């Protein structure tokens, strides 16, 4: 495709998309409830969240299919308030592809160019380029029903990018495909988007997909953005119990927060765990409030209970009983029960010299203070 478009790569200082206090109410149910989001030019943003959290509704408002109940949408600095969908210059890939069944693959891809009154020779050239981009040269004359699911999705993708839209929206585009194909297409969609310099808003409820593809991820919950950040931000520094729970596996220790110096303690009799200064600062909780310490499974070490009281400073510990040991190739996964009855998970690299726990063993779990993330516990 011919280098970068007039839009993609233009004005890098101005956000490609800005949502401000965006909301949508159906009847009296708030589907989207005050979303703020700025997407930079060329950025790949994923909206990730459980079913019904408002991802599709947000996307439909950006595309102009649904009118927002409140807030504003700006694309390239222009307010979209009164701009109908066919003048927004936004490409969309639907989950069920939405290819026109009465047109061939090539005619489908040519459609947005015809609507823009591009000349015939140029349409021909750009359709051929787009087919090449998604590696389907030669299949242009097929009708959608003559193509496999993965091929249809590639055509839908080609159709959405062929006119160099200012923004590319995708709503679970790979949701209907099997795992293997999905993983191959994830990489392909990501690489082509980068190659084109496209600004992408992608919707999925598959967290691995989000982590693989995105520059940043917006975690949706009940119509709001719970946290916005890179995959690493979300995994290493979840801002809430919801995010900690939603992204990856986590061990959650509940208690009350007691500040001390820069850091503090999370207390749950008879245990107490030290909270690092950085973690305490991020959470900025009042003394005595219900809180939880989040520790990722690969940050925990299993030691014998008889390791004694002589724990090094900067290390926290809790006792647990091993329920199950699962061998996952290069990994070993321990499932345990904490004294309060909650479950815990530990992942160990094999050959890392860790404790050889067996089901039924009483063990001690330890972790570096800095590996614990403090979050408020809304249910505490």
């Amino acid at each position, binding site marked *: 495709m011919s280098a970068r478009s007039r839009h993609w790569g233009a004005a890098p200082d101005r956000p490609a998309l800005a949502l401000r206090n965006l909301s949508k109410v159906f009847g009296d149910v708030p589907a989207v409830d005050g979303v703020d989001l700025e997407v930079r030019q060329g950025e790949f943003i994923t909206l990730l969240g459980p079913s019904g959290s408002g991802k599709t509704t947000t996307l439909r408002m950006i595309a102009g*299919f649904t009118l927002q109940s409140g807030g504003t949408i700006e694309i390239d600095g222009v307010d979209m308030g009164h701009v109908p*969908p*066919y003048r927004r210059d*936004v490409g969309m890939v*639907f989950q069920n592809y*939405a290819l026109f*069944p*009465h047109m061939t693959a090539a005619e489908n891809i040519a*459609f947005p160019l015809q*609507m823009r009154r591009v000349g015939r020779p140029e349409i021909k050239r750009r359709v051929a380029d787009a087919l090449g981009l998604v590696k389907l040269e030669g299949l242009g004359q097929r009708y959608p029903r003559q193509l496999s699911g993965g091929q249809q999705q590639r055509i839908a993708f080609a159709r959405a990018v062929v006119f160099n839209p200012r923004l590319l929206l995708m709503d679970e585009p790979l949701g209907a495909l099997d795992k293997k194909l999905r993983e191959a297409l994830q990489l392909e969609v990501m690489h082509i988007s980068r190659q084109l310099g496209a600004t992408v808003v992608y919707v999925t409820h598959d967290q691995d997909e989000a982590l693989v593809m995105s520059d940043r991820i917006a975690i949706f919950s009940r119509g709001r953005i719970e946290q916005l950040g890179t995959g690493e931000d979300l995994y290493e520094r979840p801002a809430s119990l919801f995010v900690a729970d939603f992204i990856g596996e986590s061990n959650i220790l509940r208690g009350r927060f007691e500040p001390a110096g820069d850091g503090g303690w999370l207390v749950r009799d008879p245990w107490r765990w030290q909270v690092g200064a950085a973690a305490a600062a991020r959470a900025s909780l009042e003394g005595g409030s219900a809180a939880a310490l989040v520790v990722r499974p690969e940050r925990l070490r299993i030691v014998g209970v008889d390791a004694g009281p002589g724990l090094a400073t900067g290390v926290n510990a809790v006792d647990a009983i091993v329920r199950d040991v699962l061998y996952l190739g290069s990994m070993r996964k321990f499932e345990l029960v904490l004294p309060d009855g909650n479950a815990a998970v530990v992942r160990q690299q094999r050959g890392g010299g860790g404790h050889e726990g067996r089901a039924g063993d009483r063990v001690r779990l330890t972790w570096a203070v800095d590996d614990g993330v403090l979050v408020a516990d809304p249910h505490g």
Partner: protein
Amino acid sequence: MTDSWRQPRRLLLLALGALTVFFLMAPTLVVVPMSVTASNALTFPPEGFSTRWYEKMLTDPQWSSGFVNSAQVAFLTAVLATVLGTLAALGTVRGRFPGKSAVNALVLSPLIVPVIIIAIGMFSLFVRWKISGSIAGLVLAHTALAVPFVVINVATSLRTIDRNLELAAMNLGADPVRTFRRVTLPLILPGVLAGGLFAFITSWDEVVVSIFLTTARFRTLPVEMWEQVRQVVDPTVAAVATTLLAVTTSLLLLVLVVRRQAPAR
């Protein structure tokens, strides 16, 4: 073995079905042998074989002008009803406005209101408007009767197409008119054509309203038949009836073919 006790039941069912079809079809099909009788009277069973009633039908100016008038009225009705019915279906399926169900009921009402009442109403109105006895008047009247068939066919097609296709078209830059022309219309075309054929048939064999709105100088085929049967019972009527039946049947078969052409997903 399990079929042994089913066999008599199936035979009974088959016999009942055949009997029903016979009762439904016989009165209609009886005109076919009657139209080739050699005798001068309309009789069943026919006596001898002759095609002279068909010859008479084609040469008698009254019958042939009836043919031309019927074909004209039915064609114009089909065109008008298809356009109006398609628009009405779009409005009632896609639109959102107060009183939508009332409008829908009004559009479909000619299916329910007794035709004789419609005929009397139209007659008194059309006489005042001075379009009674004209081709325009009859086309308007038949259109009112035919529109419900178009609306029902097109609305069914509209409900089965994926709404995302129209959204995709708009998203790709097509305004509402171009979305309709390039995406919606091609997808509902089988329904539109079926509706148009039904509209043609509705007008083609309509007699009640036509009796009120035609004159001796301008008659459609069914009205001509009605007039002739009341005066002289001449087997030409059977020839005309057979021809009418043949046209209607082929159009209905065409509807079936058209419906099969639903775009593959």
